[in-house]
């Protein structure tokens, strides 16, 4: 019964609209001095201001304004010389003031764009996603509905409120409608959010962790018949907590809309909640009757009028655009596309670059971070960035290998040691007594011992059956606790058994 995606795009043109909320990583909240650290005990990061006690007043966090202007500049926006905060009025228990301080008709950044490149049937193609506005607001608290089956408010026995999140600075980035993506709408949506995430991370203004909610995407999707002018009714999908989900949510909504329209029904304008397990959305709040938020300028705050010179100062601090940087690094390192994607997906680009800048060969740096170190991080179920090993450590290890002081195998032990907290590579080497045995006398002693123990195998080699040498080399390596250079062992062994040249 389900339509195929091909059926949908044969008949309809999707139109996207994306709203991304970003929690800024400022130390304090948007309008008070409370800490913003994630995961604290409920209601420990609150004060009269963010609890909206009678008489408390908001004061704007300058750092949040700075971060927002940087975001605007990075997204090619104009920065308004004068913008204001407004109150968005509605009642909800997790919103202490029962209004949210936001920006309404005078946002701080307007009219920007983000170019995203995706792979199409005709090769790589760039789509321009236009940004309508970037504005500042504060986050709400969190409600935890206890009892009942769904964790939703309906059917819950009681609700708990945590105001730690209330007042965390949020930036909302709203695109204009994005037509013309055709069948690539899901990919464009995903690529846009990914690019945005990379830009924000490069700016250092947010943790951009979708799973923790520091970057949240609402995907608006509507369909119209191909060639039609008038936009279809849109749905707004919330709760999209990963890049993959962005793509799935858009695709899923396109199919859902098309089924409705094909059956002669209509799309209801509403909020929908994405469900990670099924990839489907379920109906939320209807937006057919637009809620009246009674916006008006926030009288407790003065307008934001950033100095032009300050804006230029901030512009000068902008980092290289992530997409351009990726291209530059890929060229400089001569990395194939697949490897490059692997590094991006594993989120090791920064760390590999840092390692290379410390003198390491790019391919070595890449293989350590993407290989052994990623594996350990996976085993421990932590992010690579959370391991104790640094680019300095890896660069040092690579240098030791290059100097012949470590073999690849020994280097792995050093990596393990560094991650286990045994110190810097040189310290691990010293503590563990790791060194390449390049004293031929010691090696010869081991070889003689092994050949005596495995006389039969030694005889085979002596008779010209060279593949049998592997077992003997392995035994010698074991005898020397892996500290020998296997190539040298082979050379000496074959010489010893009359097979040298």
């Amino acid at each position: 019964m389900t339509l195929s995606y091909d059926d949908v795009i044969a008949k309809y043109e999707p139109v996207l609209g994306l709203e991304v909320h970003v929690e800024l990583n400022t130390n304090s909240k948007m309008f008070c001095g409370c800490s913003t650290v994630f995961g604290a005990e409920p209601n420990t990061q609150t004060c009269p201001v963010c609890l909206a006690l009678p008489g408390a007043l908001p004061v704007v966090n300058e750092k949040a304004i700075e971060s927002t202007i940087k975001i605007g500049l990075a997204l090619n926006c104009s920065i308004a010389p004068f913008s204001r905060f407004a109150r968005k009025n509605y009642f909800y228990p997790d919103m202490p003031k029962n209004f949210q301080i936001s920006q309404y008709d005078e946002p701080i950044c307007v009219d920007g764009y983000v170019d995203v490149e995706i792979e199409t049937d005709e090769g790589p193609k760039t789509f321009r996603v236009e940004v309508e506005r970037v504005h500042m607001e504060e986050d709400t608290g969190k409600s935890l509905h206890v009892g009942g089956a769904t964790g939703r408010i309906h059917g819950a026995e009681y609700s708990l409120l945590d105001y730690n999140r209330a007042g965390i600075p949020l930036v909302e980035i709203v695109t204009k409608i994005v037509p013309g993506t055709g069948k690539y709408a899901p990919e464009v949506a995903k690529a846009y959010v990914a690019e945005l995430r990379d830009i924000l991370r490069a700016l250092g203004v947010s943790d951009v962790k979708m799973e923790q909610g520091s970057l949240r995407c609402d995907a608006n999707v509507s369909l119209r018949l191909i060639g039609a002018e008038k936009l279809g009714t849109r749905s707004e999908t919330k709760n999209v907590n990963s890049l993959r989900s962005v793509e799935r949510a858009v695709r899923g909504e396109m199919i859902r809309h098309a089924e409705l329209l094909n059956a002669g029904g209509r799309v209801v304008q509403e909020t929908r909640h994405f469900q990670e397990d099924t990839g489907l959305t379920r109906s939320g709040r209807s937006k057919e009757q637009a809620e009246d938020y009674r916006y008006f300028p926030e009288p407790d705050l003065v307008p934001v009028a950033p100095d032009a010179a300050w804006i230029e100062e901030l512009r000068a601090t902008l980092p290289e655009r992530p997409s351009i940087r990726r291209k530059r690094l890929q060229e400089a390192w001569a990395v194939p596309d697949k490897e490059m994607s692997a590094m991006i997906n594993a989120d090791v680009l920064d760390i590999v670059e840092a390692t290379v800048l410390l003198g390491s060969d790019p391919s070595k740096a890449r293989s350590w971070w993407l290989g052994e170190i990623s594996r350990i991080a996976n085993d421990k179920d932590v992010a690579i960035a959370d391991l104790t090993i640094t680019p300095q450590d890896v660069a040092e290890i690579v240098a030791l290998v290059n100097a012949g002081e470590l073999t690849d195998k020994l280097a792995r032990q050093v990596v393990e040691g560094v991650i286990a907290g045994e110190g810097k590579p040189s310290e691990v080497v010293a503590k563990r007594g790791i060194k390449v045995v390049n004293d031929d006398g010691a090696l010869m002693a081991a070889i003689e011992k092994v050949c005596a123990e495995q006389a039969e195998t030694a005889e085979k080699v002596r008779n010209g059956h060279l593949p049998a040498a592997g077992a003997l080399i392995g035994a010698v390596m074991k005898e020397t606790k892996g500290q020998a250079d296997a190539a040298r062992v082979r050379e000496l062994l074959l010489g010893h058994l009359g097979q040298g040249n």
Partner: protein
Amino acid sequence: MIRNSASEMAAKLAAGETTSVALTQAHLDRITAVDADVHAFLYVDTEGALAQAAAVDAKRAKGEKLSPLAGVPLALKDVMAQKGVPTTCGSKILEGWRPPYDSTVVANLKKNDVVILGKTNMDEFAMGSSTENSAYGPTHNPWDLTRIPGGSGGGSSAALAAFEAPLAIGTDTGGSIRQPAAVTGTVGVKPTYGGVSRFGLVAFSSSLDQAGPCARTVLDTALLHEAIAGHDPKDATSINAPVPQVVAAAKSGDVKGMKIGVVKELNGDGYQPGVRARFEESLELLAKAGAEIVEVSAPNFEYALAAYYLIAPSECSSNLARFDAMRYGLRVGDVDGASAESVMNLTREVGFGKEVKRRIILGTYALSSGYYDAYYGSAQKVRTLITQDFTKAFEKADVLVSPTCPTTAFKIGEKANDPLAMYLNDIATIPVNMAGIGGMSLPSGLADEDGLPVGFQIMSPVMKDERMYSVGAALEAALLSKWGAPLLDKAPVLGGAR
């Protein structure tokens, strides 16, 4: 001793003729004696006040350098958060709430060792002109207990007029300091908007609210003004500039060569004859003191009241949304199975009084989509025009003057069911708030027809608050020599002292 001015009390304390504990106890005794009749106080902090007084006495005994008002008692309007002390704003919805923090005004008072006696009655959330809108019953005017003491800060001015305190804090959104001062024969100042921090002042209308000093003399008011004023980083609308030199101005009281502008539109029809007579008389005295009296026109003032009753309710509808029973104050209907929404509804239904509800509904309507431009939007334009009127008028005059309100104190209950008549009481005070400038009311005598106090209003440009103190001090001195004794000596003797 309680009939002294605050500066006289301060001088006696400094000279060691009395102690803050004795002075504080005298006022507590006075409150016990008369407040059953006046009902100026909602809460008397006997222990806290005496402890604070003892601490000041100890500091003085050690020879510490103290501020000019150290040890002098004060009455605090119940709209100001004071740590640990009940703060109700005259509303049931905040019954039992004790703030966990001090407002900046309270912090400044404590820093200056001013002794806080307790919290004074007010119209609920400062909405009213008679203190009849308090959920805890009205305050009575010490001049005539059957009459209103003005509002919303009727408790603070009545406490001054009844000698229950020599100093008081008020807040003024449309006249709530000046009109009560006028009808009780006391002095009240609304400083320039942003001159005194609003942090901890429970908001009625954020863009209009301003805390200010109240006392029985211009100098006392100036001393208190300097104690509470100054830039506060916790209030984004606080002005970052030095506090105007109001004490120096009040001490010199020099008006020679000053141009005093009489606002044509704030005098005439609708003003009680006795009010006009005292106003004219004051102008003559100021002229005699060396000021030049000129007439100015402010054509847009006639729209001020209408615009005010759109802006103030709009802001209040949003400011009062936080009273939702979730975190503090009253909670009604919290029974098994009740939703948060129903608890919010019931609490607000029961917790808010009629006038507060009227203004929330008015403001909600004025901000609604489709009506915003016609109501809130137009009102903001009027506000700009009023500010321009003031700017032009201040080109012709250093200060502007008018009667503070059109009438003397009316009877309790007289206008309670006629909100529009009540609103008209603030016709001369509201333009000041709309433009964010400074305004003072001081007594200009008694109206011949009813023997009740009349107020004289002085308005000064933004952050030129010292000007109204110069003029106020000059007029006060001239009136005092004319009367031979303070006006309050003519007030009836109350309660215990009878």
